[in-house]
Structure formats: structure tokens, C-alpha cells
């Protein structure tokens, strides 16, 4: 399949979002709002739930389903408050020894006046650093579009997984084409060049696991649920030092072969 077809699938309006995954994979979900500093960014959904019988913290960025929901969620583009809400929930998870599960579907962090005024770059940097330092197991799943730093802010995890038709890129193909060739309509070419499909990223070692989508949503969620249990158990059994060291080495290694 051409890279841009994957881009279209990843962005498809009917694609499942964080809320759908939470509903199928976890039970007893309690949503928690707000960053305690400025507001509640609805692009980021977070809370506590049970994975089988294990309490976990779940955080996700999602676009929303219909137009009104999409407007509320700013089409999946978080402001600094969204990342600060995530950071707050990460710290809380660590305090109570809960593993952190993130779902990522975002075109990117929002480029706006308020976002810049309130430190979008600083918020993303802090979220990345916070994830890297959490003394609890962390898994991030890119379910749709993994747009640049705004996605990485919730994906600096022990394990990063992707769905078969998800994408993950440093820049959108449209943005890349307009910068490189001054022509946003060359997004198809850019998508090929950027090697942003789950299959590409798996081959690079950026992503640890890819879930095929050749099944219905219930079956897919069952598979993810089983994989999460396994990953969380395995990592929770590690001494904290080793958990953190492995996470450090994971990101330390990526791209080494090109030095």
C-alpha cells in the first residue's frame, strides 16, 4: 500500500479514538480533568482504570468523532495544558505505583498564540522528560496519526506500539512538501520519502510491535489488552533502576546504525 493511503487511513474520520479503546480494553474508568494550572484541555483524555485487575493510568490524545466533539477537542491538537494534564497524571501514577498506558492520535501540538504564550515547547519537553523518568512501566500506542513532538510527548515509553494503519512522523507530509518543494499538493511524494508507516518504523526499531487490523475492533482490543497485561507484568517485575536503564538504552540505540 502506498504511504499516502496509510496516511488517509490513519486520519480516517471513522477511526477509533482513545475513548473507544478505553471502553473496550479497561474497566472502571474514572476520568480526571485539568492541569491544575490553567484549564482542562479536552484534546487530552486521562484517568484511572483497571487493566484486568491492575489499576493503571490511561492518557490519550484524540480528535473526537463528530464535528462538535472535534471542535471541543481542537481536532486532536493539544495545548500546553493538555501536556501538563498528562504530566500531572503521570506523577500521580508514579506515586501510586500505577503503570501508564498512552494512546496517541494527533496531527500535532497546536500552533497558536495562546499555545506559544503558555510554553508549548516547554510543556512538550517536560512531558518527554517526565515520561522518561517514571519509575512505573509505560506503554504508548499510536492508534492513528503520530504527529511530531506533540505525539512524542506521550510516546517516550518503555514500549511504543502502532496499529498497522497508523503513521508516526516528524512532520506531516503536507508540511514537508510545502517546506521542501513549496507545494503542499506533493504530500504523496513526501509521505513516501518520510517513511512514516508502522511497517517502516518497526523495521527501524522505533516501534516495538505492530498490531494488524485485519480483524474487528473487539478482537483488536482483546489482542491489545493481552499484550498490555504481558508488558506491564514483565516491566513491573524489573528493579526500578533496570526499568529506567532499559528505557534510556531504548532511545539511546535508535538510529545508531547510521552513525
Amino acid at each position: 500500500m502506498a504511504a499516502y493511503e496509510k496516511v488517509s487511513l490513519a486520519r480516517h474520520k471513522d477511526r477509533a479514538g482513545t475513548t473507544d479503546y478505553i471502553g473496550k480494553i479497561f474497566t472502571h474508568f474514572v476520568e480526571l480533568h485539568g492541569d491544575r494550572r490553567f484549564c482542562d484541555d479536552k484534546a487530552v483524555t486521562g484517568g484511572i482504570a483497571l487493566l484486568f485487575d491492575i489499576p493503571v493510568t490511561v492518557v490519550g490524545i484524540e480528535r473526537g468523532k463528530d464535528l462538535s466533539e472535534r471542535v471541543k477537542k481542537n481536532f486532536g491538537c493539544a495545548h500546553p495544558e493538555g501536556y501538563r494534564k498528562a504530566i500531572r497524571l503521570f506523577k500521580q501514577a508514579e506515586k501510586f505505583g500505577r503503570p501508564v498506558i498512552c494512546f496517541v492520535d494527533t496531527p500535532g501540538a497546536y500552533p497558536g498564540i495562546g499555545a506559544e504564550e503558555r510554553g508549548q515547547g516547554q510543556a512538550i519537553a517536560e512531558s518527554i522528560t517526565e515520561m522518561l523518568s517514571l519509575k512505573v512501566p509505560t506503554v504508548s500506542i499510536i492508534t492513528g496519526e503520530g504527529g511530531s513532538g506533540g505525539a512524542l510527548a506521550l510516546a517516550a515509553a518503555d514500549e511504543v506500539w502502532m496499529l498497522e494503519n497508523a503513521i508516526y512522523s516528524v512532520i506531516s507530509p503536507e508540511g514537508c512538501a510545502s517546506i521542501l518543494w513549496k507545494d503542499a499538493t506533493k504530500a504523496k511524494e513526501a509521505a513516501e520519502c518520510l517513511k512514516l508507516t508502522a511497517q517502516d518504523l518497526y523495521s527501524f526499531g522505533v516501534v516495538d510491535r505492530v498490531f494488524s487490523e485485519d480483524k474487528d475492533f473487539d478482537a483488536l482490543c482483546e489482542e491489545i489488552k493481552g499484550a498490555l497485561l504481558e508488558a506491564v507484568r514483565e516491566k513491573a517485575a524489573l528493579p526500578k533502576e533496570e526499568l529506567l536503564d532499559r528505557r534510556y538504552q531504548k532511545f539511546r540505540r535508535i538510529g545508531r546504525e547510521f552513525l
Partner: protein
Amino acid sequence: MVLKDLFKKPQNKLEGETTEIKIPDELCCKCPSCGQMVLLCDLKENLQVCPYCSHHFPLGARERTGVACDEGSFEELFAGLRSKNPLSFPGYEEKLAAAIKKSGEDEAVICGKGRIGGMDAALFAMDGNFMMGSMGIVVGEKITMLFEYAAEKGLPVVSFCVSGGARMQEGIFSLMQMAKTSAAVRKHGEGGGFYISVLTNPTTGGVTASFAMEGDIIISEPGALIGFAGPRVIEQTIRQKLPDGFQRAEFLLEKGFLDDIVDRRKMADYLGRLLFLHKR
């Protein structure tokens, strides 16, 4: 009389009637901020700061380490690493070759150790002449190695950022450098390491969203553009013009994202004092 003296601002008002003097183009430039013609030799002597309005001109990485460190104390580390083309991105190799030629550097960052105000430090300086200081695998690796080196040697780190962000041509690998460098900053800090991040014009994108904003102390040169999204992207998104001074250092200081703004001519002294206060 040397040429330099000829074009000094007239002291006497009566002599101040501007007679158009033609200065050869290669000897001077026009200050983009105040419009004055500035002699290049004067500019150099003034650390590339306009003597009339204090506009800070860009500084190459090599000049930067020269300005920051006590004379002759800078020793480069991890030199000679050059980027490959991990994605076989069309045209990337040509761009790298042109950047090497233009900047005279192998990549967009130089790392090393030196003394600043008499204090030992590990430092790195990015180079805006090298593909706009963008971060790919090599830039991320050199910065990571420097933080690891500093952690091992118990040295503070001083960084000078100038960057357009991630190196698009290296795709996801450039994004991953944000995680890699952030992890190294964290590790260095965890061991009590002190890190001063100096932002210069411009610092944007993935660099802002990683090590640039992770300093224990974050300062900027005057007037530097600092942001996550570039102004053009924001204007296209919100379909309105941005106010004057938006995303400039003075704006960030006002909003609480900088510890201070420091003139380049006072920078070495300022850094030296902070390093002294964190002596271990």
C-alpha cells in the same frame, strides 16, 4: 588614518551632514534593526553586536565557543562525525555537502570542554549556517555524548542553541533525537549536574521542545525568536498576523519562560558567575 576611523559616527553635529560615502560592500553591512551601515571589522570587535542599536547578529558555532570560553581553553570533542542519509531522502546528500561547505563544519553542532570565567565546563554550540541548525541523528548523538561525558566527569553543561528544529530529511530519526537528548539531560541532572541553556536567534521546533527548554537555568540573547511552532505556521493556522515582538526573548521573559536576557558582550561573565555559584 585607517579606513575604520573614516566612517566612525561624526562626533561633531555640524559635521554630521550625511555625505554619501561609498564603502565597498565586502567591508560593511547594513544593520537589519537600525539600518546603520556597520563596518565588519567593528562588528567583529563587538562580538557581532551592532555598536549602534545592540542588534545581535548571528554567530557561527566556532565563533561562539571562541567568545564564550577563556582564550584558548576550548578543546573540541567528538569532532568529525558526519551525517548519512538514513531514509535515502532525495536531495539530502547534496544539502549536507552544501551545508558543510557553507558552514565549514561537519555538522550543525560542535561540542567540547573549556573554561568559562575560569570555571571548567562542557559546552556545545549549534551552527545556524548548517541546514538552519536542524537536529538529525549526528546532532542528537553529539549532544547526548556531551551530557554523558559531563555526567561522567562531574562537569556542568552550557549550551548555545540555534535551530530551526528537527531535520526533516531524517524523518522519525530526527524526532527520536528529542527523546534521546532529553534522556541524557535528565541523567546528567539526576547526578547533580548543572545545565545552563542559552537560546539564540532562532530556537524553534524540536530543539525548543527538548534540551533547549530543559536547562536548570534558561537564558536568551536579546531579540531571539523562541518558540515551538514557527511564526509562519501559526499565521497560516490562525489566519491572522502575529503581534510585534511575539515569540521574541523579551516576550518569553515576560511570560515566565526565561530566567533572563543577557547581552552577548556580558555573556561570558554572566555564565562564569553562575558556574561559580554551582561549583561542586
